[in-house]
Structure formats: structure tokens, C-alpha cells
């Protein structure tokens, strides 16, 4: 009931594992009747699966793509990982643990994590919990206003699979359909230790050049837009952004 452990899976690894999980189900032919076992997929199902799975971000993290600039990239990444400015936007109830994380006992500032007031100054967008469709629209707008490099941390069980709001008519169930998520932090509420753990994982990803959510979003914009428009009924966004 009170799961306090952190589950942090980098985007790339998680996706490939999810696929392997499904092939496993197919091979062992799981006896549990409730689980939809996958037989030979029809063409329609393959198409659906392609839509359903988030696109992989292969050449992630290379904001500057020239291979020759490796040393520069290393230094840049080192600098970036030690100054993570988190946008002050409490999108859900997880925002209650952010003050505790930022203040004296847990003191996240020793890792270079601190708040930023506006999206233009922020590096990290923290989705603290469930997103109602009304907030999702604002969050997408905020994310697109942020400047590269930018990262998304999803916070709490409800961003992963809906959590206890699995049957709610107003909240989205899996955040990575709509925004590129770099790190997930599991739990309801995740403890401040978990939050800091998630940030350290993000720092590792940044240092290795694997946290490329922003680039992934730009490359697969059509796919994300299609998903977003399924949920947001009255679509009044600008067509093109000048990134």
C-alpha cells in the first residue's frame, strides 16, 4: 500500500523492456485469463501497436550533433547536470513534497536543484502527479515555451498508469503519450529521498548524453500532437513553433 521505493527507469531502457515483456507473454502463453495474450497479430493490431507505443529516442541527448565535439559536449553536460532549475508549477498533489525537498532537512540545493519562476528560465518540468485534461493543455504550452535543453520528471504513480484514478473521466493515464518523460518516480507520495534519487538519475542521464526528451519531442512532434489532440477537444495551439 505504501510503496516507498523508487523506480527510476530511463526512457530508452523502459521502452525496450516493455516490448520484451510482451514477447514473453506470447511465448509462455500466460494462463491468466484476464491478461490479453498476444497470438499472431493482425495488420490492424500492428498498426495500433505502432500508434500506442511511444517512439524511441535513439540519438538522444545530442543537442549538438557533431561527433567531433565530444569534449565540449562532456563539459556542457557536466555544467548542465549541476544546475537544474525546476519550474515552480504544482500541477498535482505531489507538490506538497516539493517544499520539504527544497528546505533545510533534505536541501536539494546541494545538488544544484532549485526553483525557477518562469518556463523560459527553467530546465526541468516536474509533473507532480495526475494531470487533468484542462491542466494538460497548459502543461504542453508551458513545456513548449521552455528552452532547450529541457527535461521532464514525472512524479507519482498516477503519471505512470493512472494510479488510483484509473477510471476517472478527467485525468490522463500515461504521461509519456503526451510529453517525453525522462525519469519516472514511483510512489504515492514519493518521499523526498525518492525525489532526490530521481534527480540524481536524471543527472546521470544528462552526463551520459541520454536525456534527450526535447529532441525526441521535436523529432516525433506529429505523433505527440496526434495523441494530444485525441484528449484536448478544443485545439487552439499555434501550428508551428520556431524552436
Amino acid at each position, binding site marked *: *500500500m*505504501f510503496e516507498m521505493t523508487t523506480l527510476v527507469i530511463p526512457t530508452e531502457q523502459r521502452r525496450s523492456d516493455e516490448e520484451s515483456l510482451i514477447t514473453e507473454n506470447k511465448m509462455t502463453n500466460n494462463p491468466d485469463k484476464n491478461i490479453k495474450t498476444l497470438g499472431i497479430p493482425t495488420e490492424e493490431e500492428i498498426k495500433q501497436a505502432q500508434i500506442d507505443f511511444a517512439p524511441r529516442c535513439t540519438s538522444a541527448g545530442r543537442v549538438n550533433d557533431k561527433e567531433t565535439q565530444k569534449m565540449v559536449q562532456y563539459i556542457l553536460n557536466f555544467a548542465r547536470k549541476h544546475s537544474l532549475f525546476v*519550474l*515552480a*508549477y*504544482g*500541477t*498535482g*498533489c505531489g*507538490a*506538497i*513534497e516539493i*517544499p*520539504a525537498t527544497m*528546505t*533545510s*532537512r533534505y536541501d536539494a540545493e546541494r545538488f544544484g536543484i532549485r*526553483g525557477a*519562476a518562469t*518556463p523560459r528560465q527553467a530546465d526541468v518540468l516536474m509533473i507532480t502527479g*495526475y494531470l*487533468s485534461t*484542462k*491542466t494538460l493543455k*497548459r502543461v504542453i504550452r*508551458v513545456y513548449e515555451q521552455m528552452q532547450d535543453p529541457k527535461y521532464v520528471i514525472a512524479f507519482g504513480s498516477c503519471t505512470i498508469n493512472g494510479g*488510483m*484514478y484509473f*477510471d*476517472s*473521466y*478527467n*485525468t490522463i493515464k500515461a504521461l509519456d503519450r503526451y510529453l517525453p518523460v525522462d525519469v519516472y518516480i514511483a510512489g*504515492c*507520495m514519493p*518521499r523526498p529521498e525518492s525525489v532526490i534519487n530521481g534527480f540524481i538519475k536524471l543527472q546521470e542521464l544528462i552526463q551520459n548524453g541520454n536525456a534527450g526528451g526535447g529532441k525526441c519531442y521535436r523529432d516525433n512532434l506529429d505523433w505527440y500532437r496526434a495523441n494530444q489532440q485525441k484528449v484536448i477537444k478544443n485545439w487552439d495551439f499555434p501550428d508551428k513553433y520556431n524552436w
Partner: protein
Amino acid sequence: MIEKETTLYLGPQHPGITGNMMIKLKVKGDVVTHAETHVGYLHRAFEKLIEGRNWLQSFTLLCRFCVPEPDPMELTYARAVEQIEGRDVPPRAKYIRTIVAELARIQSFLLWYGGQSGSSGLYTLGQWSVGDRNYILDLFEDLTGARIYHMYMWPGGVRRDLPEGWVDKAYKTMDYLERRLVDYNKLLFDNAIFQKRAQGVGIIPKDKAIEWGVVGAPLRGTGIKHDVRIDEPYEAYADLDFVVPTYEGGDVWARALVRRDEIKQSISIIRQALDKMPGGSYYNRIPNPMKWTVPAGEAWVKTESVRGEIGFYVVSDGGNKPRRVHLKGAAYTHGVSVLEKILPGQNIADVSFILNSLGVCPPEIER
């Protein structure tokens, strides 16, 4: 004098907003002329979802109604179910519930210290008080297993007894907090910046306050003595001695003074309850929760939370699921109609200051 009227959207992404809501302001120069609250960013359809859960399952949803202070929600709902069903609560459970409710009140006050001082630019106090709040969350963790959402109070009592050594730890924490309160008050109430900014700002008129639906500390800040703990004593409050502080003025300053005194009263209540703690059982066993039905009926139950009086209107149709659970939070009136009435005439810089002093909690408005 500037004649042109501009529209200013404060929120939903704004550091001064408590939670996730938006206030649409019309401003002339620096002065607000018209305010309109927009909510719905945190709507999770709890009341709809609870209709599909059984009586005990709904507790996991209920405590998430308001994030800074989840325990009064559980307490009120548990009392409503007990009232419909006619279930008794053992005296030990009543005392434990009182202690948990008061601990929740203190931790919420400490969070308020951070918000109120942070919105006037004094960040030191937030670092101290929110840091010290962790000591109370530690107590919760020992008692219930979780820091924020406890799901600790059930119909018929509480989920666990007090663990070994918890009482001593609670006494020690109370002593520590009492010492720290002196420092907080020096930092906030002796500060000229806070005094100048708080006095005469966000005034709620005394003669209109009850009619407007103002409750809790903002009402006591206008000089009207109203507290559910005294009007309709629940749990162990009838046995305990405490004073309900009131101040005249109705401004942010008076509300802050009320809260400053209330936190001392809460510490005293917890000490008394720990002293008087009776023995015996801590719960009254309920039947198998999956088959448990509550007889048809309705209840309107009120509790005093930090932000003011909260109430649950619960209707049962005799089944194993609630027919209707409707929360009336204090923020429902404070955050919408009261705020829209008192904001015109204030400065833009004072808006988030007033929001914090009213204790507006958006998830309570839209649920």
C-alpha cells in the same frame, strides 16, 4: 491616474498561487478592479469515483481531497459513516483521533508560515518552519506508515494502536516546537516588512462575514468566536481545555495573529490528550469490508480544519457503496466568492499574500 484597464492572468503557473488555480484580474495600474477565480485544474472526479468504491475503499480517495491537511477529511467521513450506522467508538480511539487531527493542524500551520512569509519575500522562515514540519511527519510515519496520506482513521476507531515509545517522542517534539515557535514569531511578527504589508490588507467586514460564508481563522480574525470544536464538540474535545483566540480587524494581520495563537493551543491540546490517554481497545471491529453495508440514511458532519469548517454530506441507500459523498471545504467559499469580493481595491502584489492568509486550497474547491 491611469485610466486604461488591463486583464492579467495570475496562474495557473505562478509561484505565488497556492496550488494550481487561476485568478483573472482586471487591473488599473497597480490596483485590482475586478477578480474572477477559475478552477478545475485539479478536478479528479473524486465524488464520482467514490460512488464506485465500497465504504472502506473510499478512504484512499478521500484523504486526497486536500493535500496540506488530509486527516480532517478521513475523520469527518469516518464520523459521518458512524453516525449513519450508529457505531460506537472506543474512548482510546477518540483520543488518538484528536491527537492526529491536532498534529495535522500543526503541520499545516507550519506550511502556512512558509507560504505567508514566502509571499511577502521573507524566505528564511519558510526554510525553518517547513524543515521543522518534518518532525511531525516523522511522528505520522511512526504511527501510520506514511508521511502525507495516512488512511489511519476508520469507521469504528483507528487502524493501529500507538507504537512503543511514540508518546515520549510526541512529548519531545512538542517541547521542541514550542521552543522554535518563539523564533518564528520573532522573525515574522516583529518584522517591520510583514507588519506594514499585513496591516489593513484584505479586510473582511465583520458584519458581513458570516453571511458571506467565511469560516475558520478568517472569521475569528474579524472578532467572531466560532469554532466547531466548541459549538459541536466531537471526539475528545469536550474533555480538553482550550481557548479559541479571536482578534479584531479582519485583515491579514489579524488572521496571522489568530493562527499564531492557535498553534500554541494545539500543542496544549496534544499534551492534555497524551496525559489523559485512556486504555482499552482502539477500534470497534467492522464486518468484512467487501460485504459491509451501511443502512440507508444521511448525515451532515462538520469538523474544524486549519482553513476552517469542513463538512461532509453523506447519503447511503443501504448498499455496500456510498450513494453520494459531498465535501464542503472552507476554500469553496473562501477561494471563489469571498476572494472575488475582497480583491478589488488591493494591489497586485498583495493577491498571493491574501490567498495564503485565506488558506485557499484548490483541490478542495473542485475535488
